[in-house]
């Protein structure tokens, strides 16, 4: 099995720098270099550098691309102006989540504002092939979809000093972009020398950590040079390379759903508290009618945040109880380095989901007191 796992362009760098490599979504990825807590704290206080090349990157060309994507996701994206990015979900006919995605509408770097534009969709690594297949089943002749995942690399620069570092390295200040905006930027080539060569990179003000920051998509052969420059220049600013372990504790504190945990094909976006990304009015997409029924139907278990008073850490799958009766289940749990206590997200019966409700989590046979708290657990100042 191991030999079949995909490797990003930074695989060798990770191994050479002591990363522990694990399987994730069909890829061999770094889970940590030194310590999850150190990498987490670096991201909250300065900068974390993440290789997220495993995320799927699908490009859509053709005048009908926006309309086509609009017909597959839970909210409007056909009205997305160039330079904008929107979070959305793809659902199956039953309204269950196939994936959560970002849809970008970008002006092609070689053309002017009035010229060509294209759409980009970033999907989860574990869902990429499923989504490519789903798109293949729905695509129309006037849209071309290209899977650029293996031809490109993606790096997230996250933290309070992330934009400053990125500006120093690529010569473009991402603070010019508002939140959830992106554009194609010519970035100086690796070891540029005197040639002054440049390469097109997608720079977006997005992330999955609850911090300010940006994500960069570059041609795969530029990945190592860009990464090394970020590491080298970032060192003096407190930057650390960070693995999937810290990415998980960071997104958990920020209460961002993780596919396979808070969302999957059996959970609707409405249950997951992602109503903001669901628009049913005058729209058609797979799962639309099912979602309308779910919206008007009986209340289902809801996603909540839980804070524990003990030190034992709840994990995915643990039962949530009240007065000895199970009222829910944990979908993600961990020790929060920021709050210095165990936290979790999970689904609980509506009657037990109010903020302040005292519950218990069955941590390997022993109940640990847990209280329903407002999400997110952490919000940057």
């Amino acid at each position, binding site marked *: 099995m191991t030999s079949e796992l995909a490797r990003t362009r930074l695989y060798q760098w990770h191994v050479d720098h002591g990363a522990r490599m694990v399987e994730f979504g069909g890829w061999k990825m770094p889970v*940590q270099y030194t310590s*999850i*807590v150190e990498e987490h704290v670096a991201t909250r206080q300065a900068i974390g550098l993440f290789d997220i090349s495993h995320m799927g990157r699908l490009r859509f060309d053709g005048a009908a691309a926006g309309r086509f994507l609009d017909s597959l996701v839970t909210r409007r994206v056909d009205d997305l102006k160039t330079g904008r990015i929107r979070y959305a979900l793809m659902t199956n006919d039953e309204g269950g989540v196939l994936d959560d995605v970002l849809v970008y509408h970008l002006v092609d770097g070689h053309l002017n504002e009035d010229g060509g534009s294209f759409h980009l969709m970033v999907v989860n690594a574990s869902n990429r092939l499923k989504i490519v297949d789903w798109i293949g089943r729905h695509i129309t002749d006037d849209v071309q979809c290209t899977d650029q995942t293996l031809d490109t690399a993606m790096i997230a620069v996250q933290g309070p000093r992330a934009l400053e570092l990125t500006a120093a390295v690529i010569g473009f200040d991402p603070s010019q972009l508002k939140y959830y905006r992106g554009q194609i930027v010519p970035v100086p080539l690796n070891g540029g020398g005197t040639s002054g060569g440049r390469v097109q990179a997608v720079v977006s003000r997005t992330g999955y950590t609850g911090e300010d920051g940006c994500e960069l998509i570059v041609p795969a052969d530029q990945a190592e040079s860009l990464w090394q420059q970020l590491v080298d220049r970032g060192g003096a600013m407190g930057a650390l390379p960070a693995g999937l372990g810290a990415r998980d504790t960071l997104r958990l504190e920020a209460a961002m759903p993780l596919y396979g945990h808070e969302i999957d094909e059996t959970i609707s976006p409405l249950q997951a508290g992602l109503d903001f990304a669901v628009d049913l009015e005058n729209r058609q997409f797979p799962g639309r009618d099912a979602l309308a029924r779910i919206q008007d139907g009986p209340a289902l278990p809801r996603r909540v945040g839980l804070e524990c008073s003990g030190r*034992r850490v709840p*994990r995915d799958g643990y039962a949530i109880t009240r007065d000895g009766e199970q009222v829910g289940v944990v979908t993600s749990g*961990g020790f929060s*380095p920021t709050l210095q206590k165990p936290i979790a997200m999970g689904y609980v019966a509506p009657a037990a989901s109010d903020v302040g409700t005292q519950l218990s989590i069955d941590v390997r046979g022993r109940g640990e007191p847990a209280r329903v708290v407002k999400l997110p657990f952490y919000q940057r100042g």
Partner: protein
Amino acid sequence: MKPEELLYAKTHEWVYLTEEAGTKVATVGISAFAVEALTDLVYLDLPEVGRSVTAGESFGEIESVKAVSDLYSPLTGEIVAVNKELPDALERLSEDPYGPGWIIKIKVSDEAGLDQLMDHAAHQKLCEEEQA
């Protein structure tokens, strides 16, 4: 204690043997390799003094940010002491797992388990294999 002078279980607990009035007493902890593999420790669950354990049985658990692991008794006997301060001072495990990071003491009742333990060199080899 010097790691070179200790015995080790396959599950990376270490054992230091002394004799008290003709009975073997084993001080038990976890190796630097185990501490390093866990990293970011957040919780240690200690057993009650007086509890009987058999070799290979879980006597507690240790939790890191990433995951929880069982602690396995390397020998059979009665737990006669636990390091009560350790759960609130987990940094001692990173600083010196062979000294202030000891976890329990077992009065050994059956020496049969002793031949299952390995010496330092054999344990080093095991660590290298697991790392590869």
